[in-house]
């Protein structure tokens, strides 16, 4: 009997039901928020803030889109994935723009340290941007729940041993390698896989993890200027550095 290589049997992580469960569980939050806000408008003395409803719905749709992109990237052959030279500063800038409305809703300030000093890297542009936005969404939601003294997120890039880390940082110590490792083991099984970081299923973190995994990149915890964060590890391409 012929042996079947394990790689053909095991589905890539993004296609597991666990990620879907995590996303579905996460979706309840914005939907509830929209439903309750709409209902408040019907109560005596109540009013409905339509702009807040729109922002909440838009952010939820973005997370769904990012999940779909992750599934699509994971189900493609690696050779079909179109990587291109990508300026990290541009990706961080776009991600920041996309996160701005929901961050404002949660009272979180976004700070961008983008100066373009790292040059381009080879990456899947949409995938990288979607991963950063997903991480940002998770942290925007988590920061006020942590009762953090400073509601501020920093989008930034810095060099590490393996290349460049592009990610999102904050002033809370809860984002640790252990928290991410345990979270990866528990997501889809536990209600709060990263309990020290988020009160939710943390779907944004795991969607980013799945997208980056599909892109042959990696989600990592990272420290930068006394801040703690999550980011994508992007290998440096020596040829592009000459550009």
């Amino acid at each position: 009997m012929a042996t079947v290589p394990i790689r053909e049997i095991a589905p890539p992580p993004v296609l597991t039901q666990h990620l879907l469960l995590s996303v579905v569980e996460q979706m309840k939050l914005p939907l509830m928020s929209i439903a309750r806000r709409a209902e408040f408008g019907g109560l005596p003395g109540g009013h409905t803030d339509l702009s807040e409803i729109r922002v909440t719905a838009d952010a939820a749709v973005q997370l769904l889109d990012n999940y779909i992109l992750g599934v699509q990237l994971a189900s493609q052959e690696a050779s079909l994935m179109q990587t291109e030279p990508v300026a990290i500063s541009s990706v961080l800038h776009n991600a920041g723009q996309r996160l701005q409305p929901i961050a404002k809703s949660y009272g979180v300030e976004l700070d961008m340290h983008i100066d373009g000093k790292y040059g381009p890297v080879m990456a899947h542009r949409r995938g990288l941007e979607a991963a950063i936005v997903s991480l940002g969404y998770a942290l925007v939601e988590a920061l006020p729940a942590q009762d953090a003294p400073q509601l501020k997120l920093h989008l930034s890039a810095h060099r590490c041993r393996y290349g460049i880390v592009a990610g999102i940082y904050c002033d809370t110590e809860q984002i640790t390698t252990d928290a991410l490792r345990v979270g990866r083991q528990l997501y889809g099984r536990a209600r709060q896989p990263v309990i020290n970081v988020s009160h939710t299923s943390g779907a944004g973190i795991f969607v980013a993890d799945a997208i980056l995994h599909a892109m042959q990149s990696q989600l990592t915890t990272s420290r930068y200027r006394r801040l703690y964060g999550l980011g994508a590890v992007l290998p440096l391409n020596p040829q592009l550095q000459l550009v």
Partner: protein
Amino acid sequence: MIHVLLVEPDLLLARNYYDALKTVGYVVTAVPSAQAAILAADEAKPDMVIMELQLVGHSGIEFLYEFRSYADWQSVPLIIHTHVPPSEFAGARELLMKELGTHTYLYKPHTSLRKLLSAVHDAVPVE
């Protein structure tokens, strides 16, 4: 004036519940975490507590044990308003309702504002 302590980690949801409770005449203190809830209750004893069980860093049950361990807060009516479906507490219902003195258990995704306000009014009517 009835003082409600609302323990809700999600800022947008907290804002909705805060607004609704305030509109019908309750004085509301909204906090996102267990630690902030203990500090807030210490500062001004609440007449009732509404709380989520899924909190950052703590299980809401841990918070409940701590909260009920203070003599002053043992009789404060408490509503659990949570994402955790009641079926997950099927075996521990006795613990929640009797030992920890829970007045009502509401599954948040199925609880409208009207239902929440009605449960709060049932526990502590507005004067």
